[in-house]
């Protein structure tokens, strides 16, 4: 079974992001970038399926600027076999990403696409669902457990009320939740081996997709600063302040 794993290059989760002075977005110049953490979980799950003998090949895909090849290299160091970079300087939106992934799925003919449930930069949580819809494939989103068995795949999903288990036929799309696994750390020999694994580079036009954004960002602002707290002397004073000052009760 071939597995496709799209990986996104995002601002590192340790970085405290700053809004650009002109309010058009978040500052990314000179900021540490790394693989979206949910995509790391997706790669890890694919590698585990390969180690179990379920998968035969893992292809890591990234869409974005040329530096996304670094993100693909990270995936290759974790255990993916080869990479595909769809290079564009445009800010691609989920629908464009889903269309490009659909074209790649038709080219690569995988049985499974595993994606992170969302990217930590825009928190859209849309690409996996859009891809499944475009392909007409079943989808198991927010997976906390995945088992490939009897020619299908069972996905345990984290939902508000607890856990929901769905059985999907293959081919299918799965998106990963936080508790699916703990991604491995790539060792130095694997980082070196990853340098020798192939990365195919193409443009959105090669896939017949126009990535021009359809959405317009009006303004990006910092969240309001938290104000200092107040100490209250008694429960009665607390209730009074909640009622008269905060006006929440």
């Amino acid at each position, binding site marked *: 079974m071939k597995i496709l794993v799209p990986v996104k290059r995002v601002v590192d989760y340790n970085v405290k992001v700053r809004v650009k002075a002109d309010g058009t977005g978040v500052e990314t110049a000179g900021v540490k970038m790394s693989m979206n953490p949910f995509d790391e979980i997706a790669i890890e799950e694919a590698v585990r399926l390969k180690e179990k003998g379920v998968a035969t090949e893992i292809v890591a895909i990234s869409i974005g600027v040329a530096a996304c090849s670094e993100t693909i290299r990270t995936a290759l160091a974790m255990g993916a076999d080869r990479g595909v970079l769809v290079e564009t300087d445009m800010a691609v939106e989920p629908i464009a990403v889903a269309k490009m992934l659909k074209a790649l799925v038709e080219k690569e003919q995988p049985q499974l696409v595993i994606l992170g449930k969302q990217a930590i930069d825009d928190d859209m949580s849309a690409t996996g669902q859009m891809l499944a819809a475009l392909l007409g494939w079943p989808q198991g989103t927010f997976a906390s457990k995945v088992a490939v068995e009897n020619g299908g795949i069972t996905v345990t999903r984290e939902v508000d009320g607890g856990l929901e288990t769905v059985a999907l036929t293959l081919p299918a799309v799965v998106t990963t939740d936080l508790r699916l696994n703990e991604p491995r750390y790539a060792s130095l020999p694997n*980082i070196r081996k990853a340098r020798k694994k192939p990365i195919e580079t193409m443009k959105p036009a090669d896939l017949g997709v126009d990535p021009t954004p359809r959405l317009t960002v009006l303004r990006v602002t910092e969240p309001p600063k938290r104000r200092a707290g107040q100490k209250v002397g008694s429960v009665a004073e607390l209730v009074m302040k909640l009622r008269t000052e905060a006006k929440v009760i």
Partner: protein
Amino acid sequence: MQFSFTSEQEEFRSILRRFLEAKSPATAVRRLMETETGWDRTAWHDLNQQLGLTAVHIPEDYGGQGFSFVELGIVLEEMGRALLCAPYFASTALAATAILNAGTEAQKREWLPQIANGSCIATLAFTEPNGRWDTSGVEMTAISSDGRFRLDGVKSFVLDGHTADLIVVLARRPGSTGNDSLSFFTVPGNASGLARRPLQVLDPTRKQARLEFRSVEADLLGEEGAAAAPFAKTMTQAAACLANEMVGGAERLRQSALDYATLRVQFGRTIASFQSMKHKQADMLVDVELAKSAAYAAASAAAEDNADLPAIASLAKAAASEAYMQTAISTIQIHGGIGFTWDNDTHLWFKRAKSSEVFLGDPAWHRELIMRAWNV
């Protein structure tokens, strides 16, 4: 001279930093430093199974990864930054290096794969209660009888000596004083006649032990009477390694001082905005960056087996010792009253700075070694 890390090395550093931040937060350091062993097997297993760190500079022929002292330096710098409590320096930087320098082919094939996969924790016992770092301090005797050797004497300040599975010991022929009578030996940690006692030391994050040998049977490592040259080489390589570990700790302290200064508000503004604070931060940055350059140069020289390594390694050790210690002092000052409390983590690195300053010789000793290396 131009030196920079490759993108591959930078990626490795980034992954390693993330790994150590997850596995060795200050809470883990505080927990382990209170234990007698000083480290924990699960974390050691993760270190070796996930990243194979104990194998980094051991050649592939002996079960290692075949990288150089530059990569080992990166590992140590990140471990110094995280203040990792593990017998890594003892087993990998000291013992494995000594075996590589002194062992026969068969001995390397016997011991190095076990050290590389982390199943054998080794250490190097060379210092004695007299506290000397060179061979003139070696008083332990090795008596040969029917091709077997028995060791008598005391080794002290042995890193992780109370928990190591294998001890590489430096000893001399009875009654001798010169370098031509020195030999390396290997002794199992549970050998009969060996008494091991953990020492109460300043730095609880790096355990040391006193080892008393009473007619302990030992195996010769390498050639009899030929340990002086491999020992000297091991010490210079170890000094380069320690310098890299120290600059990692110094950088961590510098950053924590800066973070605190930009957070702490006094007289309506952050204390980082005061001129005296800026001077201190600038001095710290210069000290740490200079020490880093020296440490990286030493690791590079060790990787190339450069003839200038003894001088460069000593220069790096002296520079890193002073930079780490001064950075630790300044970090406490910048933190003000909270800086020397138990709750604040600075004292953990401060103690490591002090113990590392002395270990393998203080800056004055290393400046003396630079002069000797330059024949001054």
